[in-house]
């Protein structure tokens, strides 16, 4: 049988974000798969170098709309380490609380997306309906449904009142009841079990070899969780279990996520019961001492790593972000191989990908000269002006309107 190469993406109805997959098919079976990133580069790391640390919190927070607290906390931990300050335990507890609420909304969102990808839209509707409960909690606590802006260098910006604690506990009870039902649905409903079992296999050895992170690794039986391995915020004091599963397929990844929700409720109850008294912020000077720092954070999707280099001024010299999706990407092509074409969307969705968080740069390959070059900001800008000029739109004449480079 002849082999057929099918390009999926960068724009494809089955994908939520632009990314390219090249699938070599033998009949319906995927023989090999390659992933091509780089369609959604936004230049955030470079932009960080031109802003102060305080401004960067809000920029970094916007790397991802779903795990925004993840990125801002991870960045701030670096800055606080460089400045040599330790936040109060009340601030650490509030960060943990918002972090867990974020995990709940992200996992419920994933459950809905997974349901949608396998054509089970009933599950999608119900889990997204229940997700609204936790979104309302986040809006109540922080003022916004997404991009909470709760973090500031040296602590948190908003306190939790005793009425809010009551509201949170009430909603968490409701969510727990719904989650118990989802665990039953995910483990018992025939349509789901038969559709997902055995799809996108990733053995424990492969998960370790390919550096998988988060629920993707834990579903393969790898007990890897930054909250336990390298505790930050209040996780060192909070008892919880790292959920693993032996299924090592898409079903296992789903089960790990819904069971993690139960652990999140446990953490939230513990945090709210023992919320220590104290100040919300400690004072941090505007100029951060020279040095470099690295920090890790367990995002809902896996381990997030930030690196910050300071030169003693108000602005960082270098910021580097390794989003969890990048760690899971190398296992994707492995999981796709040997599967069916129809399983491709759910296998990709099962790592809970966030491609725009992952994209870092654009490399242009010249096939004739066989050379590679990178596009920087000015080159990209000149390219876009030329591109539009060829199509009859001249932006160079009005470029003075945007002299501030925005």
């Amino acid at each position, binding site marked *: 049988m002849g082999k057929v190469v099918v390009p999926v993406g960068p724009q494809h109805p089955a994908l939520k974000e632009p990314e390219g997959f090249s699938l070599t098919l033998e009949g319906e079976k995927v023989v090999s798969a390659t992933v091509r990133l780089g369609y959604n580069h936004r230049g955030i790391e470079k932009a960080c170098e031109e*802003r102060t640390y305080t401004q*960067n*919190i809000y920029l970094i927070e916007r790397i991802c709309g779903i795990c925004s607290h993840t990125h801002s906390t991870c960045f701030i931990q670096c800055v606080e380490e460089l400045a040599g300050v330790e936040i109060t335990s009340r601030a650490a507890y509030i960060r943990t609380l918002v972090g867990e609420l974020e995990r709940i909304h992200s996992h419920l969102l994933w459950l809905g997306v997974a349901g949608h990808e396998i054509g089970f839209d009933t599950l999608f509707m119900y889990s997204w309906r229940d997700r609204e409960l936790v979104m309302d909690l986040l809006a109540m606590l922080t*003022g916004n449904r997404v991009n909470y802006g709760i973090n500031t260098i040296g602590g948190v910006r908003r306190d939790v009142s005793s009425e809010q604690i009551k509201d949170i506990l009430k909603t968490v009870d409701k969510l727990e009841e719904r989650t118990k039902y989802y665990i039953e649905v995910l483990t018992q*409903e025939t349509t789901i079990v038969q559709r997902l079992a055995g799809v996108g296999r990733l053995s424990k050895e492969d998960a370790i070899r390919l550096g998988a992170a988060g629920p993707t690794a834990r579903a393969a039986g790898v007990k890897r969780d930054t909250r336990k391995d390298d505790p930050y915020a209040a996780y060192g004091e909070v008892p919880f279990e790292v959920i693993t599963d032996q299924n090592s397929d898409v079903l296992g990844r789903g089960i790990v996520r819904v069971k993690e929700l139960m652990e999140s409720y446990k953490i939230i109850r513990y945090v709210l019961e023992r919320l220590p008294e104290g100040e919300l912020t400690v004072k941090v000077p505007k100029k951060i001492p020279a040095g470099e720092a690295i920090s890790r954070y367990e995002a809902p999707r896996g381990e997030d790593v930030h690196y910050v280099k300071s030169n003693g001024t108000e602005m960082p010299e270098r910021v580097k972000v390794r989003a969890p999706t990048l760690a899971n990407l190398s296992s994707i092509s492995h999981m796709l191989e040997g599967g069916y074409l129809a399983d491709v969307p759910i296998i990709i969705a099962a790592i809970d990908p966030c491609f725009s968080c992952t994209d870092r740069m654009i490399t242009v390959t010249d096939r004739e000269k066989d050379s590679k070059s990178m596009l920087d900001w000015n080159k990209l800008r000149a390219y876009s002006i030329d591109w539009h000029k060829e199509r009859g739109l001249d932006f160079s004449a009005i470029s003075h309107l945007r002299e501030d480079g925005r």
Partner: protein
Amino acid sequence: MSKIGKILPVALKTLFTKPSTEAYPYVKKLVEDDFRGKLEFNCDVCIGCNICTRVCPAKAITIEKVEGEEKKFKAIVHLDRCIYCAQCVDSCPKKALKTTQAFELAGFETGNMTVEV
């Protein structure tokens, strides 16, 4: 142990409950009291220190002198640039800025998005 139609009883029960969605924009969704919406400026207390302009991550706010008056300032906000982080509110030493619950701020022309608050 697997069951067919595990989700069916809930699906049937939901048929007889109220819809979870809201009929926005016909029914207005209320936001929280401390929602970070459009800025409000109190010109009586502003001392024109420009800290808000310096901390703004989106270059969305500028403080200008009112023509012909001593120590009187006005705030110009670019609604299209503002990311509603409210760092200016936190940084203001005189508490001249505050956030409101206004969130329906979209417009049809870029030129109209720069407003005095």
